[in-house]
């Protein structure tokens, strides 16, 4: 292991911790990543891996758009195991009201240089023959993509290691801050800076974080190549995903590189544990079948759940923690952390090295939520 002290200790080897490690190590910082388990075994193992531009707020757009570009740049060097596919997203409209949303979204994206195209009902049926008849249309965003998150995290971390980073797996962190990381095995490690990238578990190590675990279910089918061609998301998603109080489900279906179909998704607060809940799974699948009846016949292989780290303003916490000069956060990515991991890594490294930020950092700074709580 290392002799001499670390510049950066990163808590959590999910995709966000891995991306932070890669950026920091490449800028010459001495980095070590810690995880209580393996690489990408938290929410990263559960996520759908949809690389998607979102427009819930300007800040969310900026982060996802920048990230989407970074993924596109990274693409040529990604190993096959990461399964990057430029599937594109189809935002599916079920009625005229949602078709109006297609138009609004198209205008918003076009004004900001994101390629997209409104698709008629007939075109939609041709693009995705397994959707039910009678849908109104869709917005196609061809630059969106799909990756396999655990291998993406593994790759980013391998790149960090190639740039000199170290990795300590298997021992939980019991405390961090004030330039020190203490492990359950008794070891204490000193580091100039510490990044808490523990996803939904970040509040266990840093108190006062406005993060709540938000459970999600997914189901994957056997292989049916060509059954779905784009990531399909209902526009009603915007309404359901954004309710911060109620349990919700949405039609969200993804073609995997293997020909498998990944079916999502649900959102729940206050879940007791990570068990697959038959009623919630059923609700989610019934919703999916309402859009795509033929899904019912496909063989469902495995179901699982994961916890998103949700913040009240739906933006992640990226940057220094007021009151502890050593401590940074990189968490709170809710349902977008696979996408936004790359931009998060950039921002963290910018802030630490004093480089001019790759994009305005203010909207994501933890001080916005911590200041009035302290």
């Amino acid at each position, binding site marked *: 292991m290392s002799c001499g002290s670390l510049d950066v200790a990163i808590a959590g080897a999910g995709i966000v911790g891995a991306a932070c490690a890669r950026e920091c190590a490449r800028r010459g910082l001495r980095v070590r990543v810690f995880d209580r388990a393996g690489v990408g*075994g938290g929410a990263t193992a559960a996520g759908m891996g949809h690389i998607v531009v979102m427009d819930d707020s300007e800040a969310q757009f900026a982060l996802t758009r920048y990230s989407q570009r970074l993924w596109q740049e990274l693409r040529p060097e990604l190993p096959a195991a990461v399964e990057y596919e430029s599937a594109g997203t189809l935002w599916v409209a079920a009625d005229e009201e949602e078709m109006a949303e297609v138009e609004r979204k198209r205008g918003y994206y076009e004004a900001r240089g994101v390629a997209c195209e409104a698709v008629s009902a007939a075109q939609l049926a041709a693009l995705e023959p397994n959707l039910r008849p009678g849908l109104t249309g869709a917005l196609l965003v061809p630059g969106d993509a799909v990756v396999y998150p655990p291998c993406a995290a593994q790759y980013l971390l391998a790149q960090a290691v190639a740039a000199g980073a170290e990795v300590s797996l298997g021992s939980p962190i019991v405390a961090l801050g004030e330039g020190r990381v203490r492990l359950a095995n008794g070891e204490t490690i000193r580091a100039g800076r510490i990044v808490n990238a523990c996803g939904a578990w970040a509040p266990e190590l840093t108190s006062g974080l406005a993060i709540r675990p938000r459970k999600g279910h997914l189901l994957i089918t056997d292989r049916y190549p060509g059954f779905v061609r784009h990531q399909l998301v209902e526009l009603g998603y915007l309404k359901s995903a954004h309710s911060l109080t109620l349990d919700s489900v949405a039609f969200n279906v993804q073609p995997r590189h293997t020909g498998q179909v990944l079916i999502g998704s649900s959102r729940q607060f206050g879940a007791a544990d990570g068990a697959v809940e038959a009623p919630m799974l059923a609700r989610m*699948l019934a919703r999916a079948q309402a859009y795509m009846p033929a899904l019912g016949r*496909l063989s469902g292989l495995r179901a*699982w759940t994961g916890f998103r780290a949700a913040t009240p303003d739906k933006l992640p916490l990226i940057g220094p923690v007021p009151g502890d000069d050593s401590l940074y956060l990189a968490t709170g990515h809710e349902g977008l952390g696979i996408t936004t991991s790359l931009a998060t890594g950039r921002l963290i490294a910018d802030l630490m090295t004093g480089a001019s930020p790759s994009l305005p950092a203010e909207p994501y700074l933890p001080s916005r939520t911590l200041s009035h709580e302290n």
Partner: protein
Amino acid sequence: MRVALLDDNLALGGQIWRAEATRDVNTAAARWIRRAATAGAKMVTRARVFDAPAPGVLAAEMNEGDEERRIELRYRQLLVATGARERFLPFPGWTLRNVLGAGGLQAMVKSGLPVAGKRVVIAGSGPLLAAVAAYLRHHGAEIALLCEQAPASQTAGLALALAKYPGKWAPAAALVWQLAGVRRATNCWPIAAEGDEVLRAVRVLRNGRETRIACDYLACGFHLVPNLELPLLLGCRTRGGYIEIDEAQRTSVANVFCAGEPTGIAGVDAALIGGQIAAAAAAGRPISARQKRARRRWHRFGMALDRACALRAELRLLAGPETLVCRCEDVAYARLASCRDWRDAKLQTRCGMGPCQGRVCGPATRFLFGWQDVSIRPPLFPVPVASLAAAATPDTGAEPAFEAVAGKNDS
């Protein structure tokens, strides 16, 4: 008591009885099934339990020819008797055509595959191999060699133990190691199967010397592993690799009993005793001293069998870097060697995430790398999305419809 018996097969009887029971009404198998039917048990075949969505509820997939549909079963008491499956270990060539599971080949012959005049090598571990050898020979196959990986000293211990179990033991000749007329070698295991796509020969190591045997089939099986998925989903505790039970076959979960192979691999008579005890306990009947004695005896026998079939360390070295370990997802040995644990392997290589859900590669990697599989989640078997979508919100107020038995009825 109202009793329902669920089994995923077309015919009742489980692993070794189902064929017998349909062929001949005078077999023990047929007698037991008749007794269950005349006692009024409701028999539900082709129903595969894939979830326990709420306490006292099982969800099963009914396969009625072309139609599949979900049924739900409410119970007050549940007896889990899900049996066992063969364990396979990867070695170069094990995925060639005509390399099969020993029980698998037997089942294929039962359903019509002709083996007369075919040369068969049988390899692996355990008494099942002898049973399969006898069966195939009876159907005209030539058993070129039966390879038992355990040294003679290890199996001799079992022969001694066997001598101590009189009575019932004689009919269970299938479990006896000595087999007239079959060339059999201990200390012998396959190191590679050869052929291009189709098997041509197998190379075995016998007392340290390599031999090449031309053959049409290689039937493999490295003893059995219990089907623990359903009891684990129900929350039953395990001990030493089997479901933990008390003297009345009660598991750690209230009102859930377990019998047969998930409680110990000891053959058909052990399964019968366990089933009868569990049924008596569920019905509030006393368990006789004779049953208790028999149960203890079979338990000891199961432990002796496990020791006799203990796998030798050399078997961990058979797979080459390119040998597939997970056949569903085409994952080769070399990719697994760098993984930390089963979960890491699943995430990084997709090992165990295909249609068989790790039922084959899970036991193999447990032996090869010492990994324990931890996550048991519904659906336990692949089921149509529509069946999962049809799960109702559990209403726990309803009257239980049945006392249910999942798996083979042996009570």
